[in-house]
Each structure stands twice: as structure tokens, then as C-alpha cells.
């Protein structure tokens, strides 16, 4: 008979489940925070900011339970849709979402709003008027800052590459078009390539950068990359071919700890830095304000700044470059 081993197997599974089910917490204002992924440091900073807001609100007597949950397969739109649907069914009081795609997440968000769960969109836009607010970096401005820095570094002339991130990601597309618009102020700068994509992981960014440099490595004078992974991957690829250290001017986006190391080492000449801690913090505060019936701004800009090797040691950048993650996150 085959049911005996089956029973044993299910019993083992059951035991495992029983341990895990003790993880649940008491109910309160339940807020689901859904990032695009969970492995980037950027998202960890968002998480830290959300926890910061949670603690602050708790000290004011508003109990918040945060559900931090990214898509199971990172950068898989369908998986993120599932997470939104699950929290809609879970009947949380509010959802904070960084949509992986400005189109694909429209329907699930509409369904959540239909179920009377307010949705706040952060980091990256959504082609919908249902969200209560959009809390994000002014990404086009970030792209323009990068273009200005590139123009300064190259003295207004040279050949540059724009490595894009992924199609459908609104935030990075705004950075890309902001950069291209900003470059128009420098007629002496020629664009070698602006149609390659870094892809979702550090590994895809690295190998796509290698391919790009294989083709243009000798000619290129400056490179702009639009997020954490592509900045790290491209810098690594530049080092491999001995063109790092300022031979090719490297301007990146986001303050990953590796990028900051690379800047200290002289391999990165500019980083456009967002304020993810502030984004997570303002997201939760805004959503809770809405839940309490207070009016909220439709668009909230969380700020963007250019960090260079010259100004990186200034105290006002310290928290941006070294976000106090351990203060808010367990590990």
C-alpha cells in the first residue's frame, strides 16, 4: 500500500508548517509593501524607511503591521500580480506598490481599489488614475543631472553610451529620456549606443556590459547606467578591460555599497542618488494619512542628488550613501 510513506511525508511537512505558522502577528493597520524585487540594496533601504515610519507611527499610538513582500521570481510581472491579488484577498487596509510594469499592473490595482483597498504607487509609475498617490524620485531630473555631470566630465565633447535597464519599467525609462534630453545641451557629445538593456540582475548587467564594451570599448569616453545593478556590472566590465579609473567616465544611478566602493576607488565619477529610505518612509506615512481620512498629495517627490568623488564625504550625503539599514531591519 502506498499511503504509509505518503502519510509520513505529509506529517513531516505538517511539522514544518506548524513551526512556521507561529510567525504570524496580531492584527492592526495592515499595510502590504510590494517592491519590484527584494535583493537590491535599494529595496532594503525602502524597507528600512517603511519600518522607520511604522516605528514613528507606533510611538504616536497608531499600530501598523507591515507585510513586506516582493514577487517570488524577481522581475516577473505575473508573480507581482499574484502578490497584489493575494494581499487584496488578504484584506489588508492598504497596499504600497512599486509596479514592475506601468501597464501589466493596472488591472490588479483596479481590482484592489474595487475591493476598497487604497493603493499607493511608489518608485515607478502606473498608467492609471486609481492610486491615491505617487511617491517617487523625479527620475527625469535624475537623468538630466547625470547628463550635466557627463557634459562637465567630458568637457562638452566625446562619445557616450547609455545602457538602458529594461523595457516597461517607467522609472528607468524616465531616467533614460531625461539623460538623452539633458545631453542635447552638449552638441559635441555623440551617442554611440542607446538601445542595449542591462536586464534584471547583476549578472545580466555584467555580461551585457561586456558585450557592449567588446564592440565600443576602445571608442567610448563616457557611460551612463540607470540603476544599481547596471552601474555595478558596467564598472566591473570596465575594470576588466582596463578602462576604469577615469579613462572612461562612468556615471551611474543609486548608491549600492559596491558603487560607493567603486567611487572611492576612482572608477565611478558620478552617482545620481535617490532617497529610498525617505521614499519608504513617506509612502507609509502618506498611506496611513489617507487611511485616517486626511487629504494627501497626488505626487510626492522624494528628491534626487548628484554625488561625485569630490562631494561624497560631505556630511549631508552620509545617510544617503550609507543608509542605516541595521537600525531598522533585523538582518
Amino acid at each position, binding site marked *: 500500500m502506498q499511503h504509509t510513506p505518503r502519510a509520513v511525508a505529509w506529517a513531516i511537512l*505538517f511539522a514544518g508548517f*506548524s513551526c512556521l505558522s507561529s*510567525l504570524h502577528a496580531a492584527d492592526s493597520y495592515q499595510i502590504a509593501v510590494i517592491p519590484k524585487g527584494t535583493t537590491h540594496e535599494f529595496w532594503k533601504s525602502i524597507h528600512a524607511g517603511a519600518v522607520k515610519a511604522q516605528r514613528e507611527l507606533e510611538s504616536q499610538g497608531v499600530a501598523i503591521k507591515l507585510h513586506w513582500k516582493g514577487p*517570488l521570481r524577481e522581475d516577473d510581472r505575473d508573480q507581482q500580480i499574484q502578490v497584489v491579488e*493575494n494581499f487584496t*484577498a488578504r484584506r489588508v487596509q492598504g497596499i504600497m506598490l512599486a509596479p514592475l*510594469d506601468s501597464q501589466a499592473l493596472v488591472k490588479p490595482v483596479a481590482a484592489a481599489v474595487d475591493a476598497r483597498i487604497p493603493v499607493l504607487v511608489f518608485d515607478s509609475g502606473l498608467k492609471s488614475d486609481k492610486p491615491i498617490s505617487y511617491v517617487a524620485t523625479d527620475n527625469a531630473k535624475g537623468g538630466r543631472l547625470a547628463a550635466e555631470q557627463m557634459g562637465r566630465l567630458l568637457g562638452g565633447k566625446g562619445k557616450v553610451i547609455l545602457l538602458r535597464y529594461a523595457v516597461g519599467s517607467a522609472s528607468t525609462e524616465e531616467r533614460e529620456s531625461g539623460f538623452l534630453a539633458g545631453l542635447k545641451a552638449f552638441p559635441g557629445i555623440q551617442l554611440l549606443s542607446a538601445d542595449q538593456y542591462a536586464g534584471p540582475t547583476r549578472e545580466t548587467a555584467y555580461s551585457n556590459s561586456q558585450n557592449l564594451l567588446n564592440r565600443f570599448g576602445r571608442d567610448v569616453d563616457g557611460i551612463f547606467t540607470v540603476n544599481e545593478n547596471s552601474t555595478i556590472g558596467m564598472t566591473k566590465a570596465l575594470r576588466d578591460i582596463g578602462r576604469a579609473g577615469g579613462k572612461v567616465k562612468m556615471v551611474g544611478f543609486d548608491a549600492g555599497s559596491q558603487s560607493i566602493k567603486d567611487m572611492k576607488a576612482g572608477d565611478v565619477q558620478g552617482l545620481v542618488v535617490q532617497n529610498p529610505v525617505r521614499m519608504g518612509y513617506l509612502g507609509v506615512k502618506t498611506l496611513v494619512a489617507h487611511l485616517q481620512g486626511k487629504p494627501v498629495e497626488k505626487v510626492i517627490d522624494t528628491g534626487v542628488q548628484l554625488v561625485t568623488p569630490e562631494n561624497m564625504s560631505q556630511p549631508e550625503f552620509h545617510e544617503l550613501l550609507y543608509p542605516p539599514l541595521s537600525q531598522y531591519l533585523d538582518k
Partner: protein
Amino acid sequence: MTDANPKPGSRWSASRLLTIAGPFLGLLFVTALFGLSEDLRPVFYTGASWKNILTQTVIVAVGALGMTLIIVSGGIDLSVGSVVALCSVVGARLLEHKAPASVTILATLLVGGCVGLINGAVIAGFRMLPFVVTLGMMGIARGAAKWLADNQTVNFEGDSIVVTLMERVRPDSFLPLPPGVWLAVGLTFCVAVILRSSVFGRHVFAIGSNEATARLCGIPVRARKVMVYGVAGLFFGLSGLLQLSRLTQGDPSVAAGLELDIIAAVVIGGASLNGGTGSVMGSVIGALIMAVLRSGSSQMNWPNYVQEIIIGIVIILAVGLDRLRQSRAS
């Protein structure tokens, strides 16, 4: 499971009952597990929650219908995820060019069917390993999808009937379910009947149990194999259509690794990768088990790695049980 060479007598029917009930008991078990959490109980057993789970199962379940045919016949298909992406891009391109819904649906299914026919023809014609052929097709179809989509997502204007296939109206209540769910339920019954009762279905079991014997019995093994992959391809095309409906866009990078979910569903449902055993109901329940686990652990707010580990354990357990069953049978 359906036994290829049923032995007469009461012992057979008892064990058969048990194996059919196995996946179903598994489903009840995982469903009950999430009731252990007081936090989750009031929200997990709601119509809204089950509407969710069913909607999330559909794409894997429809794929599992096709995959069950293939696995029962002793084959495997690794190209499903890529075929789903390709079909979703084809559908999106057609909608982008204002093709009517009927043309879009038909073309999407046919693309899936054609890819399946090619797989089957190469496997049967050149006597190549299905693993290798479909591994190759996995790359070809994925590449074709990206090519056809210009390496971007394909967005179309307007609301087509295609988009409403997976649309959840009134997310608060169980009914109405999206049409895609009903479609999957209907197809499940059709395929179950065809596999159990039609000549074609019996041939599929015979080929999977012992190909040489099947050939000696006069079954046109090659033709049947081509047919199996072709029919399965139609289901994968339908999965692609449903994926398109769900994302409301054609995404060439979607469904990477979906084939593994589908194979896992079929295996959890009691099929053997050696061929000759498997049941359509079991496979669909296998897909449901995984969806319940995913939705439940997501709602429990367990970190993703916990979900991945649990689903991995379930797959190994299911295959381990299959091995035990095999060794006892022989």
C-alpha cells in the same frame, strides 16, 4: 492515476481509489494547514481568496493538461514557458493591429499547436530524445518571441474580449469567476474523458508503458507521438492566450521557468516521468496544491525563500512517493 494494464479484482479498485484520492487529500491537507493560523483563517477561506487561487492556477493547469498527455506518453516538454511567451506576443501583436478577437484566439492556439507539431515530428521522425529537442525549442521559441516583440513588451489599445478572459470582476466575491477558470474546468473534464476512454487516449498510455509492445500491437506510434505534442501545443497556446489576458500585454520574457511549475504539477498529481501513468485530474489538483501553497504563504507573509523551499519539498516528496510506488509495483 489510471493504470495502463488494470488488474481485475477488488484489491485493484481499492488501491486505485487511493491513488486517485491521493492528490485530492494533499490539496485538502495544504488547505487545512493555513487554517492553523488564527490570523489567516478569516481571510483565507473566503470566496475572494479562492477566486484568486483559481485564477492563479489556470495558466499552469491548462498547460498541465497538455503536459499530462506528453508525460503519460513517456515524453517531456521543456519548451512550454517559451511557447507561452511566444503565443502571448503573437496574440498581442495581432490585437495591436486591430485583429478581431476570434482571429487572435485562433492564431494564438495554432502557433502553439504548430510548435508542438514540430517538436513531435522531430522527436518521432528522428527518434530523438524529447528532453533535447524541447530544450532546443525552448531557446528557439523564446528567441522568436523576443524577435517578434522587438525585444520589448507589446502593448495594444482598447479592451478586447481576449483581455476579459482572465479579468476578475467584483474581486470581493467568489462569483463571477473569470471565463478562463470555467474554460479550464471544462477542458479538464474533456481531456480526462479523452485520455481515459478514447482509442487515442489508450494508445497514449500504451506508448508510455512500453513503446516496443505498443508498436507490435499495431499502434502507429510515430503518428500518435506527433499528435500528442501537437494537441499539447494547442493547450500551451491557450496558456499563452490566458497569460496575455492576465498581463494585458505581450511580454516576451514572461513565463520563464513555467515548464517546471507545470511538470511539478503533473508529477505531484501522480504521473510518472517514466511514462504510462498519470491522470488529468491529478495534474490539475497538483497545480492547485502549488497555487494554494503560494497564495497561503504569501498571505501568511512568509518570506519568499520559505515558499520556494516548501514547494521544492512538496515536489521531491511527490516524486519520492512515485518512486516508492514504482518499486512496490515491480
